[in-house]
């Protein structure tokens, strides 16, 4: 079920009414209702994959108990490794089977053996990367003893399949979600109003902005040879805005929906395009995923390497920095691979990893240089240049993210940097694109004014009177109505991951 669909528009009020009016007195009943609603929500797409979700959830429930109850380290480890391998194995089969088989066949063909191409095409279950990572954190946290296994199967199953986050996150920490699921939830007026407002803002981002930019990027990227460099550059900018408004819009709807049921979720975006460097960008973009990789991969790897290396320098590089480089390369290639079974995603991740390493490497000399020049790091010119450099890196990486394959991305990039980059962009429906661009600018102005808040419209009631607020909500609704692209149902981009 898509958040921007009539189905969801019918489903959400029904569940809300049942939750607060029928089963409101009983926490267990509320959790059962949410679990059934979550399974209905997920199964609406394909009930066969619902069975997979239930199976994975039940397996993780049992692994959690087995890891928790075994005091013998070796046994805990066996249960833990079994859980990790099976979780990653299932993800691997569904998400990466075709990729690895095709890559293997291509590799073998390089040494002269021609194997027949695999004809088995496996369908990717929606949200599998998200719920697998949630499941993994559940058993890892139990193994690390930072969380006790929950014996209440309903609570665990609900944690692993809570409908607002099941399809594309934000990837929660089980400890936070389990605590909330286990506690009595009381209706909170302010939280619910805030949730509705966040849903409305998310819908605007998705339907009025992202979905209107999608037809342009879907036209420019595959047919890039038909367009001038300037048009392709505009296409890349459109894609950067599209993916942000799409995914951040999705996250707003998910978090807003959870608020309606009394849950507070980890937020996923913090105005990333206002970042002054690539490290800051990654503290603000898809926060739930980057912190997951930081806590469960980057830091453990860094510690593991640091225990092995006792020297002060490795290949003329300071050990600390060497460890950072190694852990970054591994983490960022895996972050890329997490997004999809394609080399373009790995390169996308590597570009970010590489620039993070460069950022780390130059930060001290840069500070010294600015100090010697007498320029403050917060000087507006420095901030503007830093922001532009950061956006350029991000934009270049997005081209790989969107492209079908590596050569497509490289050709797109080289087509941008042709002479025609100075030509006036020419493409069909240009006046419509300019209208959308106007609203995109307006949107970023609103984002800028609200950049200190959880989302741009947080705490609106503190600033504006009720009639003014309501008028603003109607303007947004009419904005969606008049601007929205309803011609085709465009799925959220992150559903494919």
């Amino acid at each position, binding site marked *: 079920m898509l958040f921007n669909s009539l189905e969801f528009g019918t489903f959400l009020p029904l569940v809300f009414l049942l939750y607060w009016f029928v089963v409101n007195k009983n926490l267990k009943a509320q959790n059962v209702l949410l679990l059934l609603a979550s399974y209905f929500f997920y199964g609406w797409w394909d009930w066969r994959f619902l069975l997979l979700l239930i199976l994975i959830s039940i397996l993780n429930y049992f692994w959690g108990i087995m890891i928790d109850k075994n005091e013998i380290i070796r046994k805990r480890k066996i249960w833990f490794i079994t859980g990790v391998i099976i979780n990653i194995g299932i993800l691997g089969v569904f998400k990466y089977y075709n990729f690895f088989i095709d890559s293997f066949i291509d590799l073998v063909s390089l040494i002269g053996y021609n194997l027949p191409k695999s004809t088995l095409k496996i369908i990717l279950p929606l949200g599998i990367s998200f719920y697998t990572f949630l499941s993994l954190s559940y058993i890892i946290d139990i193994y690390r003893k930072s969380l006790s296994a929950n014996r209440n199967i309903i609570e665990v199953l609900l944690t692993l399949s809570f409908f607002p986050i099941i399809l594309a996150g934000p990837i929660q920490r089980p400890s936070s979600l389990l605590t909330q699921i286990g506690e009595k939830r009381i209706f909170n007026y302010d939280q619910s109003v805030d949730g509705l407002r966040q849903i409305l803002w998310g819908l605007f981002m998705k339907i009025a902005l992202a979905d209107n930019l999608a037809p342009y990027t879907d036209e420019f990227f595959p047919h890039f040879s038909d367009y001038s460099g300037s048009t392709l550059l505009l296409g890349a900018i459109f894609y950067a805005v599209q993916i942000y408004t799409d995914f951040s819009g999705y996250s707003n709807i998910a978090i807003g929906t959870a608020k309606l049921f009394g849950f507070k979720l980890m937020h996923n975006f913090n105005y990333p395009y206002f970042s002054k460097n690539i490290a800051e960008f990654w503290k603000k973009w898809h926060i739930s995923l980057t912190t997951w990789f930081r806590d469960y991969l980057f830091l453990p790897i860094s510690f593991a390497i640091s225990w092995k290396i006792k020297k002060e320098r490795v290949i003329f590089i300071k050990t600390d920095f060497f460890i950072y480089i190694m852990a970054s390369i591994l983490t960022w290639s895996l972050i890329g691979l997490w997004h999809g079974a394609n080399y373009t995603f790995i390169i996308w991740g590597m570009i970010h990893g590489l620039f993070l390493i460069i950022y780390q490497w130059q930060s001290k000399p840069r500070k010294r240089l600015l100090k010697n020049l007498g320029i403050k790091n917060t000087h507006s010119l420095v901030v503007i240049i830093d922001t532009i450099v950061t956006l350029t890196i991000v934009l270049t990486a997005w081209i790989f993210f969107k492209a079908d394959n590596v050569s497509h991305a490289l050709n797109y990039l080289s087509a941008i940097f042709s002479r025609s980059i100075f030509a006036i962009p020419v493409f069909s429906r240009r006046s419509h694109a300019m209208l959308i661009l106007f609203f995109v600018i307006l949107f970023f102005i609103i984002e800028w004014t609200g950049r200190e808040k959880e989302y741009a419209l947080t705490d609106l009631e503190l600033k504006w009177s009720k009639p003014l607020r309501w008028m603003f909500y109607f303007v947004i609704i009419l904005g969606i109505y008049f601007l929205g692209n*309803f011609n085709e149902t465009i799925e959220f981009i992150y559903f494919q991951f």
Partner: protein
Amino acid sequence: MKKFIFNILFFLFLLVFINALISLIVGKAYFKDYSEVSLNYNSYLLADSHGKALKDFINENGVFNFSCESDSYFDMLRKLRFLIRNTKVNRVILTVDDYTLSRYREIANNLDRSVVYTSPEDFDHKFDFIKDRYLKRYIFFFNPKSRDIMKAKITEKYKQKTGKKDYNKPWNELNEQEKLNLANFRAGSLFQDKYRSEDLVSALEKIISLCRSNKIELIGIKFPSSHYYYSLIRGKSFNADSLVKNKGFRVFDFTTIYRNNDDYFHDPDHLNEHGGKIFADTLLKSIQKQSW
């Protein structure tokens, strides 16, 4: 909780009020007349605005003009299924103009109107039927076409206020440049994308196979156009005619028959009432002649 529900209901009430205002404008302009069909015929003409120009001139010869502005193959497929369910159809005359498989037509369709001809079995899920047939029909916020009509109405009002009016002279009174401008605009809109719509191809294939399985004679026709328009679109076809021809059905190409008769046209590619009357006669004679 009471406050929350009260506020929600009040907010919804305001939305319903806006919805009612929209329905006053859109309901009249858009939904009225679309559902008019006679089931007392054996032959039907399925086309878009090109067919609409023929009005009821073909009706007296036993062909019901079931055309409507902006009808796409999606809509024609629905109409055909409706006809098959409700009457005995022997012959279907179908538009196969050069642009009928364009992305333009994929987007500018009548899906929210032609839903009146559907039944639950036309949909994969019953909810889709309820959604399209009732929710989108009466809740205008869910209906993108209502938005487009609203926009057009607002633009029209604005133009009336500011005195900026579109061309309203008859086609044959326009000068060369004005004709060329209009033809350019029209051809540019219809052929704005280079690639055809695969969804429309699939709908057309379903129409063809439905005709074949129900033993309905399918006849493809290409409507007349002015030479201004024709000179711009020559060679740009999305080839709907070939799809029909390749399945063994007849196709009549009338594109150029009135290229020197500008007084038959309402605009670059639509016949006026006079042209429609003459073409209706030509069309029926051609079909009958070939049938013999």
